[in-house]
Structure formats: C-alpha cells, structure tokens
C-alpha cells in the first residue's frame, strides 16, 4: 500500500491497531479528541473495545482493569486530563501492568489553551503521580513516528510491564503527513504468568499495588528501581543530525526538534558548526550521548516549548550548568530566529 495522508492523532490509532491494542478508554479533550473519535470508528468494527468514559479518572481506571486482565490497552489525553490520570498511572506502575497513554500536550497551566506546548515534560518524564516510579516516555516528531512510536510503546510496555507514554503535542496531533502503514500486525497473547483472566490458569495471579508490610514494600520498590535501571541500559534512544564536527549542539524533541533541525542547516550556512541531538526516549533520557558530546567540548542549547524542564536533564547529563535555553510556551511554536539568535550568542 502506498503512503497515505494521515493526521497524527489518526496515526496513533493505526499504530495501536497494528500493535494488537484491544481496548481504548477515553474522555473528550482538545487537542487529543481525534484519537477518541478514530478509536470509536475503528475499534468496534474490528471487534475491539471502545468506551468514552464518564471522566478522565474513570478512563485510566478502566485502563488499569483491562491491563490487569492482560490486554493491550490505550488511553489518550492532554495536559489537564493527564493531570487527572496521574493517580491511576501511579497505581498501574506500582502494580507493574503494561499500558500506553498518548499525551497530546496543550498550553497550560490550568486550562491554558489548545495551542501546542511541551510543558507536560515533567508530569510525563518525572512521573507526575505519587511514589517512586517511572513511565517509559517516547517522543515522536512526525506523523510516521506517531504511528511507529505507539507500536514501540506497546512493545516496551509489555516487555517491562510498565506504563509507556507517547508524549506529543497539538501540532503533531493535528498535522497531516504521508504515513507508511506498518508491515505486520501484532497478534498478542495473554501472558498467563501475571494477567488475571478469571480462569484456573491465572487464578494464582494477584494484581495489586498495596503492601502493608514495610519490608516487603521496600523490596518491591527496589525491584522497580532495578527494572528502571534495566530500561535505562537497554532502551535509551536518540538520533543526531550533523553532530560529527558540531561545536554547538541543540537538544530538542518532538515538534520543536524539526524547527531546531532547520536552524542547524541555517547556522551551518552561516559558518557556525551546529548540530542537533534529538532524544527519542525522554525516560530513559539519553544521558550518555550528551555526556560524550560534552566531553568532546560541545556546548548545548535546549530548545523546548516549556520553561527549561528538559534543560535540567541536559545540564545533568552534560555535567555543566552552562546550557542555553530557547523556549516558548503559551500556545506558540518556537521561532527560527529565536534559535538563530541564541546560536549566534553562544558561537
């Protein structure tokens, strides 16, 4: 099949269907509602479950239930709804269940507006709920990746029995680009070693996040941390652009990284050795890649639609406070000239 013109939010559902996703639970919220609409169009026809829940909390708890039954479950929302889901995400992480949540970030705080922003960085990457846990966070920057990363998120969620978040924004959700459909569809099996299916094979399984014994809860926490360490070792992903001889490195993800990439080309034309470091995973954050560049003497500029949330991680990885920031938030995209001014200042 030739590539089809598809919107980012639709690509999420295409990826989810190919990934064997069984269930979708959602609540209307702009700019993520099209994921709900597409799920309602396709899921029932393909024999899968779709519910528009009565609230964001209800939706995430339906996710918790279906995930506990071993199914592949998807939820989607945007900033205010993600905040409401945090309690459920913490429980899902604590109970070590797999699920995928797509966050089409909008401008905040509070109701904010429906323009794009990347300010859900902290509540996604730093785990916005209670307790010591982490969600796996993937950061697409194209319609193709909205599909592919949704599939990848299911792989990782099941590999580690952990929530995985696809962190996008209003522009990625709504823009239309050619999409090559996945070549193969996943046919999932229920893993009876942990899922609860209401039959004798899974009778011994218990889904819970409670442990009143302090020693046991401590052990469980250490086990979770060991899992996050394995995720850091095995799943960290990033991609570079013109980094070979770069002296100034823009660090950027999602829709901002596409603007940053254009800025790299323009800076090169002006004779400045700029490059782009683009994290594909935000948790785990690609620290080693940045550290290596830092040791080679590169200087960094974080380009993000939030108030330096990611810059904190870049600073930590680079081992220096001296990381520039090009930021814009409130519903507008970063302008090319903002980035160029900063590059010239650093160069």
């Amino acid at each position, binding site marked *: 099949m030739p590539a089809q013109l598809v919107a980012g939010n639709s690509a999420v559902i295409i990826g989810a269907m190919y990934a064997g996703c069984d269930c979708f639970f*959602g609540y*209307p*919220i702009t700019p993520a*509602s099209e994921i709900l609409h597409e799920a309602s*169009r396709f899921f029932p026809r393909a024999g899968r479950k779709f519910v528009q829940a009565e609230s964001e909390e209800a939706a995430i708890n339906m996710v918790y239930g279906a995930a506990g039954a071993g199914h592949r479950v998807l939820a989607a929302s945007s900033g205010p709804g993600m905040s409401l889901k945090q309690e459920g995400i913490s429980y899902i992480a604590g109970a070590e269940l797999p699920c995928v949540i797509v966050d089409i970030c909008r401008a905040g705080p*509070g109701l904010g507006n429906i323009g794009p922003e990347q300010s859900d960085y902290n509540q996604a990457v730093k785990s916005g709920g209670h307790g010591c846990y982490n969600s796996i966070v993937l950061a697409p920057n194209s319609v193709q990746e909205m599909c592919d990363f949704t599939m990848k998120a299911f792989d990782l969620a099941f590999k580690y029995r952990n929530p995985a978040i696809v962190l996008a924004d209003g522009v990625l959700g709504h823009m239309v680009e050619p999409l090559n459909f996945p070549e193969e569809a996943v046919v999932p099996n229920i893993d009876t070693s942990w899922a609860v299916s209401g039959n004798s094979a899974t009778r011994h399984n218990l889904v819970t996040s409670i442990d009143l014994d302090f020693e046991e809860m401590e052990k469980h926490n250490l086990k979770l941390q060991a899992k996050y360490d394995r995720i850091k070792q095995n799943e960290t992903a990033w991609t570079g652009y013109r980094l070979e001889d770069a002296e100034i490195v823009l660090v950027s993800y999602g829709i901002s990284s596409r603007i940053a990439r254009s800025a790299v080309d323009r800076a090169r034309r002006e004779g400045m050795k700029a490059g782009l470091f683009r994290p594909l995973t935000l948790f785990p954050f690609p620290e080693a890649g940045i550290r290596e560049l830092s040791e080679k003497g590169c200087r960094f500029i974080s380009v993000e639609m939030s108030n330096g949330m990611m810059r904190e991680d870049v600073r930590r990885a680079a081992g220096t406070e001296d990381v520039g920031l090009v930021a814009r938030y409130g519903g507008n995209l970063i302008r090319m000239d903002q980035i160029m001014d900063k590059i010239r200042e650093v160069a």
Partner: protein
Amino acid sequence: MNPKDLASYATNTWCPGCGNFSILSAIRSVLAQLDQEGYPVEDVVLVSGIGCHAKIVDYLNVNSFYSIHGRTLPVATGIKLANPDLKVICFSGDGDSLAEGLDHLIFAAKRNIDVTLILHDNRVYGLTTGQFTPTSPPGFKGKSTPLGTEELPMNPPELMLASGATYIARGYTHGIDLLQKLFKEAILHQGFSFVDVLQVCVTFFNLYESYNQRTYEVKDNDTSSFDEALKIARSWNYDDHEARIPLGKFYQVDAPTFDRTFPGFEIRDVDRDSRIKEVLEGLI
C-alpha cells in the same frame, strides 16, 4: 440597576442561535432585579466549570470564578463556607456536572449546601465538538459514537431528588419568562437548588423543533411532595422521543443547609484567637 450594567466587554464567541444566550439574558435580568430588591450584586459570586457554558462568566460583569472541568461545586462550596453571606450561583454543563464531576453534584445535594446550580443541559459536548454526554438520548450519533450510543441517559431531576436537593426545576431556553422565574426562585431558595435547563446546541445537537412541540409547563403540582415530584421527573426520561417534557418547579422543601449547620458556623463571629487558646488549654 439596569441589566445592561451587568454586561462585560468580552467578545461573545457562542454560535449564533445558541441556547446559552437565553440563559445569559435571563440571569442578567434576575441579578438586576435582585439587586433592586435588597440582594446587591456585589454579594453574588458566579462559578463556572469548563465547556461552552463556562464562558457565561466572561459575559457578566459580576464577581466570578472560572473553575475546573467538573469541579464547579467544590469551588462553590469553598466560597460559600468561607463567606456564607454570599449568594453563590454555579453554571455547569451536562458533561461538566454529570460526567467528570458527578460525585460533586451528588454531594452538594446530599449536604444541601446553599448554592444554586444552573445546568446548561445541551446533551452534547459542544466545546470539544460533538461527543455524547450522560443525557444524550440512546442512538445519538456523535463523533465518538458513529454507530449511535447504546447507553441510556441519566435523568438529572430524578437524580437530584434522590440525592437530597431541596429545589428542583427544569427550564428551556425558548421560554425566557419561565427561566427568569425559576432562576430567581432557585437563587432565593435556602439550600441546594438545581435548575436543569434544556439548552439547545444549534451546531452539534439541534433539538429546537422537538422541544418546541413537546415541552409544557407543570402547574398546580404539589411541590412539597417527593412522590409527585418523582412522578413528574420520571414522566420524561431523556430517551423517549414521544413523551411530553414537563417544565417548571418540580420540588421545593425546607431543610437545614450545610453552610449553616457545619461545625464552626456558630462561632465564626467569636474572637478566634481566644478560642484557639481555650481549645488548646483544654487539651493540655
């Protein structure tokens, strides 16, 4: 005070023909009237949730609080408890109060807190462009129900009756005189007052024709009778396209209100510093 004095400078972004205009106009007249009758508009606080309805607080030059989706009533409860002398009027939508914030609606009625809730019940999520809500009729085809919803709708007046609300009424946005009468009664009522307003969304669920044919005003009903109110509320379940739709006041009774009976109300005029000392010394 002239109702015009309550207009704000904000540009109105509701669709032409939206039922919200009637609610805006009715509440403006009622607030102006009340202002002349000894309830100064300075003592009124409007609270809205999130949805098309919520913009109403932008269009009224009255103290107001634009709250969170579903959380209109907890915010209103906080305001009322902090200052029981205020008249607190909530505007909420069917998605706002019956879906995301249903628990708060039931608890506001259960506590019988003295606030008014005006429900802009258009039976569709308008701001997010057309998904079904808890009061959409079965078979409703919206953006998230392309095959029609199979869920049965909720009956808000029946729910409020069961939950303990002490004033329950229904209005319709074609019928501004009745709306004004109900809003005024509800605001003056001591206790939790609930007005379900059939508010037509012309863009995503235009029910004008159906409502014009089917609505009628209930008269001479015994509004102190729970059973009679229940019967009226149940005579239309938001699902039957043939049933006639009663409008008007269904129920009104006197009962202790939360803001007057909750612990601490009686001592709010007491010197709190000395009271703290007294209480702490009693502990030692």
